[in-house]
Structure formats: C-alpha cells, structure tokens
C-alpha cells in the first residue's frame, strides 16, 4: 500500500503547476476558450513536449507507461488550471479506446499521432435519450463490400467537432440496450454523410451532436480489425468510460482545491461589520465542510484512478471491482462537487454571481463534471448493481 507520489511524480506536479502559473492564467484560459476551436494548439504542443499526451500508453505503443499516480497528477492539474484543451477526449477516452481495442497497426499509427500532438481525437459513445447507458446504441454499422455503412445519432460528443478522428460505437448486431453486438469505428472528420453541430458547453468546453447518414468506412477502420471479433466492444467501452470517469474525478478534485483556496482568500479579505467575513464561525464551519468534502473526494479519486487505468494492465482488477470503485467515486464527487460549487458562490456573495470572477468558472466546471460519463444518480444505481 502506497498512496504517496514519488520524486518523478512530484516533479511532474511541479512542472504542471509552473506551466499553469506562467502560461495558463485565467485571462489566457478565457482567450483559449473563446478561440475558434475552443482551445489553444500552442498549449497542446506544449503538452506534447511535456510528454503528457504519451503518458498513459504502453511503451510498446510509443507511450511512457504512466499509471494511476501520473494520471492523478495530470488530471488534478487540469482541474487546478481549468484547462480547456481536449486531454480527456483525446488521450484518456479516444486514446484509451484505441489502446484497448485497436490492432497493432491502429495502435502504432493513431497512438503515435496522439502522443506527438498531431492528432485530436474524441469518442462518440452516447446517443440522444440513452441517458449515460452506453449499451443503448441504436447507431448501426451495416456490412457492405469492403467495409461498413454507418447511420445514427450521437449526443454531446466532447470535442467532437475539433477531432480529426472520432471513435464511434455502432451496432453490428443485436438491438439497442444489448451489450453484445457493438463495435468501434474510427471515422475521419468531414467524412461524407456526417453532419456536425458544434457548440460551447456552459463550463467552457466544446461538444457536438453528430448525425451519421450512410457514412462509408473501410473494414480496416474497425478497431481491432483482424485481431478481435466484431460485436465485442462493449467491455472496452465500459472500461474506457470508467477510466474517463476516474480522470474526471481527479479533475474535479483539482477544481475543488482551487475553488476552496479562492473562497478562503475571499473570506480573509472581504470586510463586513468591521471584520473579515472569515472571522464568523457560521462561515468558518461551512468552509471546513467544503475542505472535508474535497479531502474525501480526493480519497475517492485515488481509489478510482487505481482501479480504472486508461490502458489495460496485466494486474488489472476485475471489471466488477472497477465498476464499484468508479461508480462510488463518481457518486461521491458528484455530490461533493455540487455542494462545494454552491457554497463557493454563496460565500463569495454577489461577486460569486459575476462572470468576471474566476471562481464562478470553477464552480461551473465543478458542477457540470457530474453530467459527463454518468451523473450521481446513474452511478448510484450502477454501484448498487455491481
């Protein structure tokens, strides 16, 4: 048992803290967010140079073989800095899916491009009305000569419009709701028959609703083609979504810690009735509750990161244990995140209502993380079933 960071991991932590301080201030972040793509290619290149984009992948796939601790460090920093670049979509979700389900050629080509910062990727798993159930896949992939024809709709695809490639779940057999019969396909941006509705999310990111109408993909674009049977991708989707949820938990912890720090600073500086508002015990106890929520959330984020690695590992825990840990963490962090965000706004008073205050943006991100890859209610039910 060891829940501490080693020297290399601490160095990474320091490097990221310096990067945020020097290159990712709140104004810079806002500029990235409002740029055409909703993020900064320059920052992305810096991430590549720092090795972040290669971090979780196996050395055999051109990665750095990072584990739970490294992912906790990176995702917590992403939360600390409220970073808007598509790390979750590209590295954790699409990268994780390719690493787990891709054949050797796909892993080499796509993971290499992701690691080098040359490829933005995203996953299109969720469908309208599916409400976080990733087996609710109505999108079909019909075999034809030399490939597949894909038709269906995908909902709230994180960074879907910015991605050069999408990893799309589609049904090669069975009916919506069946775990069996789902395959994963790599689809290039702008493929004929794709309609993309790009939009901002309220927490400063980008997402898209995407319709596929008879999009033709070659058989070679099915992840695992030639190595894995078609129709068996649900286990991968489930594991990738869990790794994504674990990453979101760590990001949420970073947001919580920053938001709590900002709230404390405000409580110490803001004077009313001739004293700092932080001198009032009724507010002190609320700040303590926020602190305890963040500490307990951190504990759960550690558990989730350990049990849900981005890429498959020889010593991986059982799927049941992974689901249990991730769902427990997502429930806890969803609930704690909502509390901390609400309290941070309340303790900032009127200032907390303004769009110019950084804390307001942290509160928005923290609240909305719960709506990505399954909210507290979804994961509570999944925890009970696990």
């Amino acid at each position: 048992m060891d829940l501490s960071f080693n020297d290399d991991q601490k160095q990474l932590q320091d490097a990221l803290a310096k990067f945020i301080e020097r290159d990712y201030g709140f104004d810079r972040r806002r500029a990235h967010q409002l740029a055409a793509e909703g993020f900064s290619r320059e920052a992305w290149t810096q991430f590549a140079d720092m090795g972040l984009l290669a971090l979780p992948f196996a050395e055999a796939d051109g990665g750095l073989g990072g584990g739970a601790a490294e992912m906790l460090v990176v995702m917590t920093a992403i939360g600390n800095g409220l970073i808007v670049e598509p790390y979750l979509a590209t590295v954790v979700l699409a990268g994780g899916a390719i690493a787990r389900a891709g054949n050797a050629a796909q892993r080499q080509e796509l993971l290499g491009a992701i690691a080098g910062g040359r490829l933005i990727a995203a996953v299109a798993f969720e469908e309208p009305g599916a409400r976080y159930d990733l087996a609710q896949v109505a999108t079909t992939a019909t075999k034809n000569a030399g490939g597949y024809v894909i038709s269906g709709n995908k909902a709230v695809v994180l960074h879907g419009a910015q991605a050069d490639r999408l990893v799309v779940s589609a049904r090669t057999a069975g009916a919506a709701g069946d775990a069996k019969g789902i395959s994963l396909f790599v689809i290039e941006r702008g493929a004929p028959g794709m309609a993309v509705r790009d939009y901002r999310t309220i927490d400063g990111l980008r997402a898209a609703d995407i319709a596929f109408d008879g999009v033709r993909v070659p058989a070679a674009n099915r992840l695992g083609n030639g190595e894995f049977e078609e129709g068996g991708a649900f286990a991968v989707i489930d594991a990738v979504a869990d790794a994504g949820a674990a990453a979101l938990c760590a990001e949420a912890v970073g947001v919580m810690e920053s938001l709590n720090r900002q709230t404390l600073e405000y409580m110490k500086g803001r004077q009313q009735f001739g004293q700092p508002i932080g001198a009032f015990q009724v507010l002190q106890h609320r700040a303590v509750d926020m602190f305890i929520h963040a500490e307990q959330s951190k504990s759960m984020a550690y558990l989730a990161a350990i049990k849900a690695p981005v890429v498959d590992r020889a010593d991986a825990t059982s799927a049941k244990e992974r689901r249990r840990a991730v769902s427990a963490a997502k429930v806890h962090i969803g609930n704690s995140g909502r509390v901390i965000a609400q309290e941070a706004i309340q303790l900032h008073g009127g200032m907390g209502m303004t769009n110019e205050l950084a804390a307001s943006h942290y509160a928005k991100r923290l609240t909305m993380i719960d709506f990505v890859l399954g909210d507290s209610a979804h994961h509570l039910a999944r925890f009970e079933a696990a």
Partner: protein
Amino acid sequence: MDVDYSAEALAFRDEVCAFLRDNLPGDLRRKVIEHRHLKREDYMRWQDILAARGWLAGHWPKEFGGQGWNHVQAHIFDDETSVAGAPRVVPFGINMVAPVIMAFGTPRQKEVYLTGIRTNKHWWCQGYSEPGAGSDLASLKTRAELSGDGTHYVINGQKTWTTMAHWADMMFCLVRTASDGRKQEGISFLLIDMKTPGITVRPFLTLDEDHSLNDVFFDNVRVPVENRVGEEGKGWTYAKFLLGFERTVVAGLGGSKRELATLKRIAATEMRNGRPLAEDPRFAAKLALAEIELMALDMTVMRVLSSRSKSPGPEASILKIKGTVLQQTLTELMMEAAGPYALPFVPEAQDSLADGVGPAHAAQLAATYFNWRKVSIFGGSNEIQKNIIAKAVLGL
C-alpha cells in the same frame, strides 16, 4: 501507487484472523454483533485473552513490552478485531494514558502503570470533563493544592461524564494547580487511585437507560506528588499530546464495517411490499450512499497510514467528524430497517443475551441509535473539530 497491503501486512492479517477464529468467545461476539451491553467481566475476559498473546498492547514500542507494530499493523489489528465482533479494547489505559506516561512519566510510573495496563491489571478512566468544562475543557475548576509537607496534592471538585468510572482502578485526571495566568496554564496531569478516601462515584443513566457514565466527586482526596506526570502546570500540553496520538482509531472504521454488514443482513430479512427491504429502491439508495461514505473513510485512513509525516495533523479531526457521522447514519438506518419492532424496550435483553420482543436483530436498534448520538459529542464535539480545522488548516 497502489492500495493493496504488502505481503508482510497480509501475512499479519492472516495471523490476526486465525487468532480471532480460535480465541474470540462466541458469547462475547454475539453480544457485540447484537449491540448488547458488555459488563466489566466481558471486557476483562477478552483483554486477558489478548494480554496472554501479548497483543493487548501490540502497538506499543518493544521497550515498553509491546510488539512494536507499525501503523499499518496496528490498523489491521484494530480493523479485523472490530469486523470480527470482538469487544473493543477499553482505550483509556492502552491508547490514552499510556502514550503520555511513555513520553513524560517517571521510571517508576512507567514500571508500575505501563505494566499494569499491558497485563490488564488496571482499569483506567479519564477525568477530564466537568459540569462547567465540556468543549471548553481548559476552564476546568477541580483544585489540587499542595499539602503543608509538600508530599501530596489535596483534590477538591467534580468530574462528570466519566465513562466506566465505576469499574476503574485508576483515573488520569486534569486538575487546576494554579489559577493565575491563561486558563490553559496551571493545569496538571495526575494519576489517581480510585480507592483513595474521599472519592465518590455516582452513576447516572443515559437516555437508553444504560449505566456507563458517572459523576466523580473529590472531597479532600490526597494524591501523592509522585503521581503527577511531568511538570506542574504543563498538564494541558500532555492532554493535547494525548488527543493527537491515535490518528486513525478515532475513525471507528472496523466497527462501521461490521455495522454495515449487520445493516445489510437486517435489510435482507426485513420486508417491504413483499420484498426484502434491501431491494426497496429508496432504502437501497440510502444504504449505498452509506457504503460509499465508508469507502471514502477507508481510503482517507489509508492515505493517513501511507503519509510519511510523523506529526499528527488535522486528519484526526476529519476522521473524527466523518467517522462519527457515518456511525450515526448506520445506527439510524438499522433502526429504520427494524420498522415497528424498533419500539419494544426490554432491559433484560440489553444487559444479557435474553430474548427481546420481535426479531432478535431488532431488540437493541433504537437504544443503540439513541446511545450513539454521543459519538459526535464526546472526544471534542464535531463542532470543536471544525473549529480546529478552521484555525489549524484553513487559517481562519
């Protein structure tokens, strides 16, 4: 980074579990699992068994007769004995006064009292709270004045909420030896033989009609000066040292694991709408949320155990707050699960293994619920813990 015990720790856990299988008496286990009241002889029987194995003070350093267990081993022992349904080790001697004596006691105090604790000869109680000194402990008024010949302190005053004082051989006690200066100064730490003339122990009942608490009155009680620990007037420092010593025990993790298992058993037996209560969506959600809280507490304990800092930090306050709230949640859910059979109150069934009314598991649940309201009050109320975090961590 990983959350699994080392092979060495796992081997130790196996050893503890095997010992529990072979040595934990079934009647004591049943009393604990069913929330019945334990008597002095129940605690003593179990502690004699542990002492014979050298495990009553297993986490003590070897130089004081312990096994020199590390933090992880001490945690495993505490966790597994609680999960198995062993009576808890009464903490006042083993966990509370002993570290103070080790750090600040005289050679004679170490010889006499540490030996008495380790071999289960002395039962200790804690003389801290007074009628006017609860959360504001430093305002205590029990006076200790030096006798004319300077050989004794003469104690006058009253302690209250004194747990198990009626069973105790010894009390460690905070008394006021000076009343000028800050109220934290002028407090001294004394070891008092409960058979000393002038001590009166008067019981009172808690709201579940249990007798574990007492008032203790001191009327010209003469305590030898050699029974003072450390320096006169420095007792507050020793008391604070004591409070921070056990960083993880305060979470009550093992006990909550046992109670969650009990809750699940009850919820599988009790019915609602013709199905087990455990399958009722509303109850299942409450149960799952409690289990998730337990997982978070478990992980926080693991983080504390693997942190390399030696000095106790604010984590003890977090564990106290989260641990006690979880314990109370579990007692509340168990009482809810019992349904109408939470109502019957049969004192004989509390104090022995006699049958109550209704299902066997239901008899003690409401009484336990009411009794467990204490855990967020004692040991520094949860509000005091929040004050500590606000000051020490948040800088407010």
